[in-house]
C-alpha cells in the first residue's frame, strides 16, 4: 500500500473536527525519534537506574540522601538509611530540591545588570568576562586601600564552603557576615552559657518519656525536624511506655497539635513559666538537693516570686481560668520531676522576643534541675567535630546588620557579595537595608557593586549588578559536619550525582561550582591574596580533608573501620558510596572550665513594639510552614508552594491565622483580605479563622512576598518579615521577630483562600472519634 502513516495522518488531519480529537491521541513528535548518544556512560543507559549517596552541604542540617539517577537525570531523592541523623528519612524540602535543579527559571549563565538597579533587566555575559569584572572591582577596592569595604554575606553554613568564604574574605580584608531571617544566635548563645558550647546538642527525643517543649515547633520546622520526627515516632509508639509531650507555645503549631497537652502563654513569657515550674520543683524538693543548691544559690526561697499563683495571670490569656493554669503548672512540674527520662527544649518564638535569652536560659536550665543532661532521653551534648571543616564559626546577628546598614549608608561598603542568603527579603523594612541598596544617604546607593551567587533570580539577585550562578548541590562536591551532630562525630560528603544541567551551553556559559569561582578569583595575581587553601580546586580541598580523616585512622565508613582500608583511594570510594564517615566512639567529654549559671530570680518582661491602636492590638507571630520554611530558595519550587500547610492546609498564598471567635466578633470570615499593620508597615493577607489560634495572637507564615524567584514565587502573597519591628533580643542582638504588635482591619475584599481542605461552613471534626482516651490522674 502506498499510503504511509504520516500521509494518512495528514489526510485525516485535514478535517478540523477530527484534529481536535486526534490532538489528544497523536504521537508526540519527540517520541518518533530515538537518539544515539555520543558516549554511553554507565548511568546513561536508558531503562537502568542507579542510586547515589550524597548530602546537601548547604542546608543548615545535612541529611544523608540517596538520589535516583536515570539516563543522566536525577529522578528521586530519598533519605540515606545508614545516615545516623535522618536514618533513611527525608523532608519535603529535600525531596523538592529536584525542582530547583530542573527549575524552568534557573539562571543559565552569568548575568550583568543592564537597566537601573532593581529594574530586573539583565544580559548574559561569559564567565571569563564576569569573573574579570568581579576581580577587577575587587582589585580597584584593594588598590585604593579600602579592602574593609567588601562584605561577603552568606547563609549559615557548616560546611567547607564557610571556611573558603571566610578564608577568601579575610585574606582580602573584608567582612564575612551571616544572614538568616529567623536567626538562631540567641539559641546558640544560650547553649554557650548553659552547656559551655555553642554547638546544638542532640535531643534524645526517641528515648525520652516526657518532653516539655517551649515554643519549638520541632516536628515541622525547628532545627532538624526530620531527625526529631523520626525520634518522635519512637517516642510515641516505639518504647514500652508512650511518651508524654507538653508543648508551651503562643501559637497552635503542628507540634502543639500533636502534643498531649498544649499550654498557651503570652508571647515572651515562656521563661517565666519555666521558672515557675522550677519553683514548684524546688519548693517541693523534687530534685536533687545538690543541684538545687547549685542553681539557686542555696536559697530555697530564691524563686518564690515565680510561684504559679503569682504568675498565672501574667502568662495566660484573660479568658483562661487562672486556677486551672495554676493547677496545670503544678501538675507539669511534678510530672517533669517524676519521670525517668524527661527532656526540656525551647526555641522558636520563645527565643525571639526581646527577653529571648532570659527565656531560653531558664528553660534549658530546667534540664540540669531534673538531671537530664547527658542522660538517656535527655539533652546529649555533642563532641567537638573533627578538625577538618570549620563549624559555623562566623556569626552575625541582627544588631551587626544594623551596623552594616549604617556603614552602607555612609559609603563604607562598596562591594557586597552574597551567597545563599537574601537580606533584601529577610530583613525587616525598618532596618533600612532596602533603602541603603537603592538610595543610600544621598539618593544614590553607596554600594557600587552587588554580586549575587544565585541559582535562581531571587530578591537579592534582582537587586544585584552581577549574578554568577553556582552549581546546584546535586551537581557539586561538598563536605559538611552536621550541626546538630547525632551525639558523635560525623562528616557528610556531597558528590555530584548528575552532570551540571547547563554544561552543554558551552564553555563560557552555564553554571560553575561556587567554591571554584572563589578559588579562581583568589588565584588572580593582580589581587595578590594570601589565602591558604589546601588544594588547587574544591575537589582537591575536599580530598585533602578526607585524607586527614583517613590518616587519623579513627571511625568507620559503612561497616568498615577506617584503619582497615588499604589505601586512601578505597577509603575515598567507600566514603562516596556511603555518603559519610562517622566515629561512634567519640562522645562528649566534660569540660572542667564550664561553670553552671543560676536561675534568674528577677522577672524579665518582654518588650513589644506598640501599634497604632493599642486597644485592639494583636501579638504578631510569624512562623515557618513545613514546606516553605523561611522562604529563601524554597518558595520558588512549585511542589513546596503547593504543599498544604499542616494546620490550615493553605497553599500558594500568605494567610493569617486568627481565632475563629475573635474573627466572628470582628466580622472577618475565611477569605477576607485583612490588613495587618504594625508601626513599621502593613501587609495584606487572607484571613483563616480557626478554633486553634489564641485569641490575642495573629500568626502569619513566612515565605511569600518575593520580588523574584521565578514564575512560581514572583509577586505572590506578602512578606511578613517586612513589617517587623527592629527590636533586638537582649544580650544576643538577634532580631526579636516575635515582638511586634499589630492592628487588623478588614479591607472588604475577598478571595477564596487556596487550601486543600474543601469548603465547609463549620470546622470539621473527626466524627468517628477513632481515639483511645486514657484518664490520667495527678501524680
Amino acid at each position, binding site marked *: 500500500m502506498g499510503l504511509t502513516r504520516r500521509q494518512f495522518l495528514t489526510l485525516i488531519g485535514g478535517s478540523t473536527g477530527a484534529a*481536535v*480529537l486526534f*490532538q*489528544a491521541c497523536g504521537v508526540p513528535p519527540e517520541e518518533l525519534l530515538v537518539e544515539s548518544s555520543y558516549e554511553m556512560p554507565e548511568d546513561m543507559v536508558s531503562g537502568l537506574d542507579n542510586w547515589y549517596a550524597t548530602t546537601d552541604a548547604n542546608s543548615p542540617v545535612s541529611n544523608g540522601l540517596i538520589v535516583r539517577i536515570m539516563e543522566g537525570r536525577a529522578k528521586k531523592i530519598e533519605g540515606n538509611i545508614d545516615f545516623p541523623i535522618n536514618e533513611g528519612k527525608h523532608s519535603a524540602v529535600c525531596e523538592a530540591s529536584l525542582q530547583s535543579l530542573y527549575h524552568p527559571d534557573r539562571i543559565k549563565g552569568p548575568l550583568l545588570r543592564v537597566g537601573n538597579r532593581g529594574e530586573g533587566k539583565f544580559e548574559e555575559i561569559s564567565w571569563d568576562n564576569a569573573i574579570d569584572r568581579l576581580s577587577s572591582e575587587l582589585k580597584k577596592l584593594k588598590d585604593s586601600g579600602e579592602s574593609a569595604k567588601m562584605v561577603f554575606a552568606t547563609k549559615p553554613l557548616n560546611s567547607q564552603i564557610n571556611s573558603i568564604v571566610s578564608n577568601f574574605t579575610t585574606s582580602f580584608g573584608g567582612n564575612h557576615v551571616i544572614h538568616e531571617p529567623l536567626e538562631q544566635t540567641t539559641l546558640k548563645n544560650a547553649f554557650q552559657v548553659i552547656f559551655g558550647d555553642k554547638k546544638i546538642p542532640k535531643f534524645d527525643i526517641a528515648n525520652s518519656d516526657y518532653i516539655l517543649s517551649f515554643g519549638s515547633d520541632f516536628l515541622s520546622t525547628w532545627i532538624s525536624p526530620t531527625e526529631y520526627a523520626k525520634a518522635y515516632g519512637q517516642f510515641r509508639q516505639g518504647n514500652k511506655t508512650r511518651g508524654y509531650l507538653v508543648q508551651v507555645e503562643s501559637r497552635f503549631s503542628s507540634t502543639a497539635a500533636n502534643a498531649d497537652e498544649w499550654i498557651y502563654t503570652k508571647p515572651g513569657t515562656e521563661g517565666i513559666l519555666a521558672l515557675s515550674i522550677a519553683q514548684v520543683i524546688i519548693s517541693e524538693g523534687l530534685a536533687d538537693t545538690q543541684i538545687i543548691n547549685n542553681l539557686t544559690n542555696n536559697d530555697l526561697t530564691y524563686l518564690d516570686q515565680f510561684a504559679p499563683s503569682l504568675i498565672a495571670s501574667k502568662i495566660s490569656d484573660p479568658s483562661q481560668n487562672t486556677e486551672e493554669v495554676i493547677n496545670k503548672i503544678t501538675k507539669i512540674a511534678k510530672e517533669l520531676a517524676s519521670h525517668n527520662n524527661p527532656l526540656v527544649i525551647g526555641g522558636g518564638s520563645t527565643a525571639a522576643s526581646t527577653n529571648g535569652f532570659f527565656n531560653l536560659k531558664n528553660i534549658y536550665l530546667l534540664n540540669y534541675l531534673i538531671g537530664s543532661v547527658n542522660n538517656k532521653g535527655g539533652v546529649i551534648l555533642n563532641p567537638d567535630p573533627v578538625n577538618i571543616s570549620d563549624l559555623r564559626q562566623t556569626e552575625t546577628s541582627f544588631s551587626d546588620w544594623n551596623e552594616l546598614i549604617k556603614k552602607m549608608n555612609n559609603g563604607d561598603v562598596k562591594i557586597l557579595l552574597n551567597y545563599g542568603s537574601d537580606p533584601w527579603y529577610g530583613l525587616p523594612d525598618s532596618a533600612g537595608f532596602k533603602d541603603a541598596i537603592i538610595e543610600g544617604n544621598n539618593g544614590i546607593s553607596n554600594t557600587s557593586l552587588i554580586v549575587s551567587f544565585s541559582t535562581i533570580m531571587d530578591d537579592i539577585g534582582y537587586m544585584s549588578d552581577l549574578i554568577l550562578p553556582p552549581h546546584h548541590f546535586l551537581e557539586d562536591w561538598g563536605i559538611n559536619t552536621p550541626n546538630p551532630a547525632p551525639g558523635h562525630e560525623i562528616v557528610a560528603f556531597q558528590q555530584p550525582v548528575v552532570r551540571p544541567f547547563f554544561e552543554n551551553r558551552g564553555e563560557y556559559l552555564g553554571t560553575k561550582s561556587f567554591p571554584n569561582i572563589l578559588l579562581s578569583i583568589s588565584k588572580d595575581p593582580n589581587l595578590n591574596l594570601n589565602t591558604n587553601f589546601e588544594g588547587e580546586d574544591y575537589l582537591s580541598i575536599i580530598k585533602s580533608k578526607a585524607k586527614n580523616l583517613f590518616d587519623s585512622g579513627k571511625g568507620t565508613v559503612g561497616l568498615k573501620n577506617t584503619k582497615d582500608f588499604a589505601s586512601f583511594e578505597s577509603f575515598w570510594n567507600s566514603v562516596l558510596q556511603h555518603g559519610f564517615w562517622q566515629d561512634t566512639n567519640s562522645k562528649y567529654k566534660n569540660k572542667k572550665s564550664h561553670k553552671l549559671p543560676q536561675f534568674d530570680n528577677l522577672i524579665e518582661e518582654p518588650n513589644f513594639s506598640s501599634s497604632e491602636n493599642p486597644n485592639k492590638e494583636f501579638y504578631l507571630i510569624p512562623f515557618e510552614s513545613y514546606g516553605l520554611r523561611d522562604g529563601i530558595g524554597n518558595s520558588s519550587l512549585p511542589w513546596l508552594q503547593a504543599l498544604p500547610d499542616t494546620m490550615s492546609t493553605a497553599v500558594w498564598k500568605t494567610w493569617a491565622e486568627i481565632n475563629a471567635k475573635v474573627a466572628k466578633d470582628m466580622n472577618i470570615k475565611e477569605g477576607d483580605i485583612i490588613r495587618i499593620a504594625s508601626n513599621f508597615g502593613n501587609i495584606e493577607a487572607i484571613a483563616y479563622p480557626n478554633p486553634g489560634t489564641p485569641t490575642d495572637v495573629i500568626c502569619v507564615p513566612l515565605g511569600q512576598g518575593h520580588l523574584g524567584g521565578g514564575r512560581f514565587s514572583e509577586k505572590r502573597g506578602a512578606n511578613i518579615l517586612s513589617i517587623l519591628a527592629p527590636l533586638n533580643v537582649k544580650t544576643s542582638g538577634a532580631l526579636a521577630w516575635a515582638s511586634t504588635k499589630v492592628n487588623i482591619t478588614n479591607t472588604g475584599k475577598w478571595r477564596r483562600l487556596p487550601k486543600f481542605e*474543601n469548603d*465547609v461552613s463549620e470546622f*470539621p471534626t473527626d*466524627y*468517628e472519634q477513632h481515639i483511645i482516651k486514657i484518664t490520667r490522674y495527678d501524680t
Partner: protein
Amino acid sequence: MQEHIQLNQKEINDIALSSVLETPKWWLPAVLISFGFIVTGLAAFFYMVYHGLGVTGLNRPVFWGFFIVNFVFWIGISHAGIMISAILRLTQAEWRRPITRAAEVLTVFSLMAALHTPLFHVGRPWRTYWVFPYDFSRGVWPNVRSPFVWDPSAVGTYLIASTLFVIICLLPDLAIIRDRTTGLRSKIYGILCLGWRGTPRQWKMQTIVGILLSALVLPVFVSVHSIVSWDFAVIAGVEGWHSTIFAPYFIIGAIHSGVSAVATFMVVMMWIWKGNDRILRPDHLDAIGRLLIIVATTWFLFLFLEIAFALFTLERPEIALRELQFFKWPFSGLFILFLLTSYFIPVPMWMFKNVRRSLPLMFISTILVNIGMWLERFLIIIPSLARKTPFAFDWGSYTPSIVEILIVTETFAFVIFGLLMFSKFFPLIPLFDIKEGMVFRDEIKIGRRTVPASIRE
C-alpha cells in the same frame, strides 16, 4: 363538558397536514435560532474536549454536575411517549388519540438528547465506544456490573422501540401525504411509507404491531429509568443516593415530568397551528390534567418516603446532607422552588376545571413542573455529592460554568430543533388515529349524563 366536533375527513386532513404542506413564517427563524444554539453548544463541547473538563465547574467531591442532571431529565421526559401511547393504548383511553404522535416524537428526540449527554460528560469522549461490547482482540469487555453499561443498552432499546412506534404510526399518514404531493416529495414520501396502500391486511398488521409494541415496550419503559436510578442507587457511599425506592421513585418522577412536557407541547401546538383546536381540544388538556394530579401525588408520596426513609436511621452524614439540601443557601432556595414548582403550585391549580381547560394556565403549570423536576435531579445529585463522604474535610460545593450551561442549552435546542424539523415533514397529529377515533366515537352515559367517550376511562 364539551360537545363533539364532528369533522369530516377532508377537514381532518387539512388541519393535520397544514404544517407539512404549508410553511408558516415563524418556522425558519425558529429553526435557525435553535440551530444557532446547537452550534454554540457544540462549539462549547469542542472547546471542552480541547481544554479538558477543567472548563466546567466540576470539582473534587462533585464529580457529576449539570450533564448528568440533564441526562436524567431528558430520560425522564422521554417517558411521556410510552406512557401516553402504550399505556393509554392498552387501557383504551380514547382521549389519547390526538396527542400520541407528539408524545412519541418528543420521546424520540429527548432520548437522542439524553444519549449524547454522556458523551459530553466523560473525560475522553473519543473513547466512549468502549462501553459497547465490541472488543474482539484485546479480550477486554465492558464490565457488565456497571450501570453505565446497562444504560446504553436500556436506552438504546428504548430508542429503537420508540422509533419503531413512531414509524409504525406514521405509515398511513405518510401515504396520505404521498398522495397529496407531487414530484420528488411524493416519491420520497412514497419510499418512506413502505408501500402503504390501506389494504385491510396492512391495517390489520399495523394495529397488531402497535399493540404488540405497546406491550413489549412496557418492560423497557420500566427498566430505563430504573437503570438510570441505579446509576445513583448502586453507590453505597453517597448519602441520599443509596435508597431502595429509587427505581419506582424515578419512574413516577419521569412520568410526572414527561406527561407535563407533553401537555406543554400540546398547548404550544394548539397555539401555533390554527385549526388545531378543532382536533386538540381543551377536554384533552382536561384529561391530561387529571392524569397529572394522580401522577404528581404518587410522585410526591415517593418523595416523602425517600426523605422519611433516609432520616429514619438518623445517621450523621445523612443528616448533614439533608441539612444542606433543605436549609443551606442556595440549595434551600432551590428546594423551596422545587417543592413549589413541581407540586404545590401546579397540583392545586389542576384541581380546577377552568384551569385544566385554560391554555395559558396549563402551559405555565406544566412548564413549572418541568422546572421543578429538573431541580429535583439537581437536588438529588449535587448536594449528595457535596456531602458525599463522612469526611467533613472533603466536603465541597458546585457552581456550573458557562460552558456547561451552553452545552445543556444545546440539548434543549436540539429537542426543539428536532421537533420543528419533524413538524415540517411529518404530521404531528396522527390522522389515521383521529379518523379511527371518529369511527369508534361514542358517547357514554354516566349516571344521567351523557359524556364524550374521550374521557370515558
